[in-house]
């Protein structure tokens, strides 16, 4: 598969207003590539640099050192910024602060209107995007009548309407209730599986990260793990060291193993765990 996003030795520093203060290094020497059709979960505790990493993907931030390529375009080329943003859509944490219009369908149309698309085509793409996230029936509602999860799905539809190759989501579920979290995750999974949209999903919920086909762990501005969920969550000690949790079942397996019971590594789902427990008890 084609490499859609490439980070090559990227470092990023925030400059302070005054000259005396040292610039704060947020990212340090990051090399990462994301293939088309990937579903990547990015994990890290607060201040690890995971949001900064995400903002590099659609040229909100440019690296201090190194290069970021998106679909072959260098993100530091300012004249191509809108090309990049069309390819990589970004969804933020607070759904309230990213909806612009007073009607759902008008909001979904916002990006296309900005891009100067013909009005008949806007209509088609807006309807298609709303159907994809399951919010078509709500197209004439006002955003403040919707639940958090619904608003976040509208925000996703607003990005989908641009037909991007990749969607980056910066903790989209952090402010949602469990119901809303499930809705959003389900929407993303179906997009990734049915349409092949690349998803970069920043989260601190481990049970969400498990659903990805690749997990990247960021700590102190560096990538400390990058593998399948199974492999990443096998190393429970390392994750705990950087202040992250593991899914409950993985934790249980870990504790059992520590207590001297023969139990396999990297258990991610309840079903798996139950099967292994039965085996352990029966045998």
């Amino acid at each position, binding site marked *: 598969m084609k490499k859609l996003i490439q980070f090559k030795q990227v470092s990023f520093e925030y400059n302070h207003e005054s000259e005396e203060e040292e610039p704060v290094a947020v990212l340090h020497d990051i090399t990462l590539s994301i293939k088309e059709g990937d579903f990547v979960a990015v994990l890290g505790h607060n201040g690890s640099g995971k949001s900064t990493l995400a903002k590099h993907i659609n040229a909100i931030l440019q690296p201090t050192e190194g290069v970021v390529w998106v679909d072959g375009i260098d993100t530091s080329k300012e004249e191509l910024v809108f090309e990049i943003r069309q390819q990589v859509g*970004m969804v933020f944490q*607070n759904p309230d*602060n990213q909806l*612009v*219009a007073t009607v759902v369908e008008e909001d979904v149309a916002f*990006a296309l209107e*900005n891009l*100067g698309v013909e009005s008949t085509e806007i209509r088609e793409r807006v309807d298609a995007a709303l159907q994809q996230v399951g919010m078509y029936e709500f197209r004439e509602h006002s955003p403040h009548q919707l639940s958090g999860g619904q608003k976040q799905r509208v925000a996703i539809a607003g990005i989908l309407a641009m037909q991007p190759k990749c969607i980056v989501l910066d903790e989209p579920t952090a402010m949602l209730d469990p119901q809303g979290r499930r809705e959003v995750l389900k929407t993303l999974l179906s997009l990734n599986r049915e349409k092949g949209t690349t998803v970069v999903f920043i989260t601190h919920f481990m049970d969400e990260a498990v659903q990805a086909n690749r997990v990247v762990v960021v700590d102190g501005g560096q990538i400390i793990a990058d593998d399948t969920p199974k492999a990443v969550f096998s190393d429970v000690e390392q994750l705990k060291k950087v202040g992250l949790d593991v899914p409950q079942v993985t934790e249980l397996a870990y504790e059992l193993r520590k207590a001297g019971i023969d139990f396999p590594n990297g258990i991610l789902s309840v079903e798996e765990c139950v099967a292994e427990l039965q085996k352990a008890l029966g045998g």
Partner: protein
Amino acid sequence: MLKDISIGQFFPGKSIVHRLDPRIKILLVFGFIITLFIVRNLVSFGLIILFLTVTVFTAKIPVKTVLKSLKPILPLILFTAILNIFFIDGHVLFRWGWIRITEDGIRLAVLMIIRIVCLIIGASLLTYTTSPIALTDAIERLLSPLKKIHFPVHEMAMMMTIALRFIPTLIEETDKIMSAQKARGADLETGGLMKRAKALVPILIPLFVSAFRRAEELALAMECRCYRGGEGRTRMKQLKLTVSDWVIAVFVTAFYIVGILMNLWIPALF
């Protein structure tokens, strides 16, 4: 409690009045106001009141709501009426001490009351039958010739849209902050004016801080959706004038002109 405030007081519907192009509607309301202030004979006023009544019923707006919209301007109506009755010179009907009432005064008072009432009802009909988004759109389109003199028409319309979008959000937030401050022992309901004004400070400051934070995030989200001002922007819903829009526009304008022309033949009320 704060949630009950309705903005723009829009009554969704599918009547002819609702479906009329918002640009035409705005212009016709302007025409209406101008007519209202030129006309000065009873027959024309009768026609205008008839016109308003017909519009209210075709738009299916409850009469109660229409009358309610007059409530806030009741003091203004009374004030104008009193001023006119007591301070206009002319044929004196009644005198008591320095107070005197003239025939012309009464006539002018009646005229002004009819004018103000019709003005408010006419203007409210616009907001009752047009969604805020259609209104903003129409204003943007109507003002677009001003772009030539570098008036930021698109920016203004965008500001209106965002304001409308965030009013409910900020009201909700105010509610939350008020509860949070009350939980910390803030007293918002007792004391004199100054004390109450001071009690608002701990509500307004967090509200402002959060509004700025929201603004920053929204700006970022808008940039991510390729927003770069009004240039080269298209719209999903384009305003298109249909034949029926034109027919209504011509018919209503003709009606205004007839009303105005009646001034020539029918003796003025004042």
